[in-house]
């Protein structure tokens, strides 16, 4: 469904992504894991059209979307749930959902109903300003808002960041549920353990290059992944 070939992105004079290949098959969950600054967010932002890559190709359902405007990319069926949620705090919960459907001509009411079904909490708070929601609720809203655009592919940038463990579990349940409904998911996570468990396919990104790839299960068992990202028992001693 999404095919990235030799993607290179410069970010503020530094090459953040140095020629990566990623395949996201239809209806799958694919995850990118890696440390801070590895180039994960830059990759997603390039797909969404917020960043102009230096080189490479991004093909979505057989069509090159590289260089397109974010507006066109949303219209093609790709949405991004940005890092840090970035909900519109000065708009009500309902308005946040409506703005997610900005390019939709019809089916907005049904879309809202579906989101409320997924997140009943949002329905209770639909008239509240989104800025007054808790972190977990804001994340629900950010996901709900992205769903309003009727995406075929939804990209999530660190959805569990800064949330309580119980809420993180809820978020991962939602990710699986959305996927079950037929939406393809490309997920960035620092919580590698949880991400790999739900992922059909996973990539490890290190300083702009992909070092390991495989199914989620394979990577869970990979010693290098265990050492670097899963915090196994045999962590290296740290000498200060």
């Amino acid at each position: 469904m999404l095919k990235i070939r030799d993607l290179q992105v410069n970010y503020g004079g530094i090459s953040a992504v140095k020629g990566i290949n990623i395949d996201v098959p239809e209806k799958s969950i694919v995850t990118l894991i890696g440390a801070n600054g590895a180039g994960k967010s830059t990759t997603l932002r390039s797909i969404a059209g917020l960043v102009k890559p230096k080189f490479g190709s991004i093909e979505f359902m057989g069509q090159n979307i590289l260089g397109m405007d974010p507006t066109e990319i949303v219209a093609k069926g790709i949405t991004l749930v940005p890092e840090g949620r970035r909900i519109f705090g000065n708009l009500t919960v309902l308005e946040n959902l409506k703005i997610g459907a900005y390019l939709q001509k019809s089916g907005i009411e049904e879309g809202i109903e579906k989101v409320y079904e997924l997140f009943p909490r949002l329905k209770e708070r639909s008239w509240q300003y989104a800025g007054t929601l808790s972190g977990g609720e804001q994340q629900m809203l950010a996901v709900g808002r992205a769903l309003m655009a009727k995406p075929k592919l939804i990209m999530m940038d660190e959805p569990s960041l800064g949330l309580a463990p119980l809420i993180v579990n809820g978020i991962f349940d939602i990710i699986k549920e959305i996927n079950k409904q037929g939406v393809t998911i490309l997920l960035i996570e620092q919580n590698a353990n949880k991400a790999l468990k739900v992922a059909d396919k996973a990539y490890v990104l290190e300083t702009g290059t992909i070092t390991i790839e495989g199914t989620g299960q394979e990577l869970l068992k990979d010693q290098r992944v265990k050492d670097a990202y899963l915090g196994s028992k045999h962590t290296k001693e740290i000498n200060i």
Partner: protein
Amino acid sequence: MTLETFLQQLANGISLGSLYSLIAIGYTMVYGILRLINFAHGDIFMMAAYFMVFGMVNFSLPWYISIIIVLIATIALGVLLERVAYKPLRDAPRMSIMISAIGASFLLENLATYLFTGVPKGFPDITFLTNSVTIAGVSLSVATIITPVVTIVCLFLVLFITNKTKIGMAMRAVSKDFETARLMGIKINRVISTTFIIGSSLAAVGAVLWGSKYPSIIPLMGVMPGLKCFIAAVLGGIGNTTGAVLGGFILGMAEIMLVTFLPALTGYRDAIAFIILIVVLLVKPTGLLGEKVTDKV
């Protein structure tokens, strides 16, 4: 002082205040979206007044047609200003775009001086506006009476657009977060143009009413009202439309009341706005109805 004089001045204060309000809305809306003080806004107002002179004097068009032409021309100028002076600097530091705004302001003032000369032009007489009526022994021009009405109608129109329409929702979203708004499929440039369209059309309406009250048009006529309306916007809480109108009324009223009760200080009527600005910045920098900051990380 007689009651009549007081009522007369009260009406003048309300009327001047509503003129300030109309222009202040333009400042506050552009600030809300671009975080930019559009210093050229006062000069857009000045150009609108000249457009009216051209329409009615040079082309001898009736006032109602002239007003439509003034509206269209002013909107075109406002949108053009945004395209040429601000859009290329979208990703530039805020200081650059502010300098560009100051430059655009000087450009318009000097262009007007070059094209229309510094000699004051008489604002055409719209008899229906300059007619005077007598209410309770006070003689007022129609313009004085309808200015506050027009301002309130415009305020409600702007509030309706920002709060109840789709483009208004997009405007509020863009004012909060450019990048995320783009991710929603919002065309940022279209939203910004809409903001300039609304601001410029209010400046055009303000210019027609202003000219009917103070019928001497010069290229620098936008400077002082522009500064005062900017102060009105700050006083009301910049970024807040209702606040801008409130600030405009307070400022206009303060100015006229100073002249009424302390005639000896008439020479300071322009200074009072700046005194208010200093006090606001010291005491309540967010203004009367300033945006509450609810940013969470």
